[in-house]
């Protein structure tokens, strides 16, 4: 059963926090080393928060929990994010 959507679905909630679109950033999975666009992660959203998993090894690479007036962003499953910036 497929119950996930694409990393694209993170765009709105991440843009509430960051001034640039992080879904076009290239991330590296801390579990398997896979590199790919945040938009290609597998996002599970029927959950208490957003859980983004590596499309290659299915490990959790990013989590975002939104509460009234605050948010938690967990990136321990990500080695780094390469973020395109204008010049």
């Amino acid at each position, binding site marked *: 059963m497929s*119950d996930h959507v694409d990393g694209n679905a993170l765009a709105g909630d991440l843009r509430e926090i960051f001034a640039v679109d992080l879904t076009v950033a290239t991330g590296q999975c801390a579990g398997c080393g896979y590199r790919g666009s945040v938009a290609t992660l597998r996002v599970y959203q*029927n959950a*208490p*928060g957003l859980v983004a998993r590596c499309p290659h090894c299915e490990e*959790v690479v990013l989590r975002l*929990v939104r*509460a009234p007036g605050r948010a938690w962003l967990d990136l321990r499953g990500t080695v780094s994010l390469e973020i395109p910036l204008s010049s």
Partner: protein
Amino acid sequence: MPIVSPGFTGRRQSPDVQLPPGQYLTEDFPVLTAGPTPRVPTDRWEFTVSTEAGQKHTWSWQQLIELPAEKITTDIHCVTKWSKLRTRWKGVSLDVLLEDVETAADFALVHSYGGYTTNLPLEDLLDGQAWIAYRYDDDDLTPEHGGPARLLVPHLYFWKSAKWVRGIQLLLEDEPGFWETAGYHDYGDPWREQRYQGD
């Protein structure tokens, strides 16, 4: 401030009973999951309690279902704000499973197939408050709802009732689980609305 959408109520019922603060009644049983649904065949299923001293107590599926089971009817409360009343389960009380376990631990970290974890005080697993449930509504528990077996701790928010339960690690110090490391409350009492850290 959000603007109100006139006529919007969502998929909710108006309750004739008192619910924990901020909760809404649902008749269906929403499926929440933080990852792919594990499919664990019962002939490979195992449940392990490990103590702070490193001792392990393991049950096979056959051993689990041969233990005395209880039927439980209880209300459940999900932190995403739905509550469901009078759900019916069958399972083995943690009092039975922990009876012969020697421990000085105060905390438990529950582990699931698929990697999910959740933490709670050990005392909340005892005294008829928690079960390893394997039947729901007179049927085998489906994988979507945590089958073959899930933890059932209905007095806490339902994320503590770990689906696809695989074991319980007994600990001297509290160790936050999957959602508890991402902002959710370490205890999660719905009647005190302990949704997030600091609530």
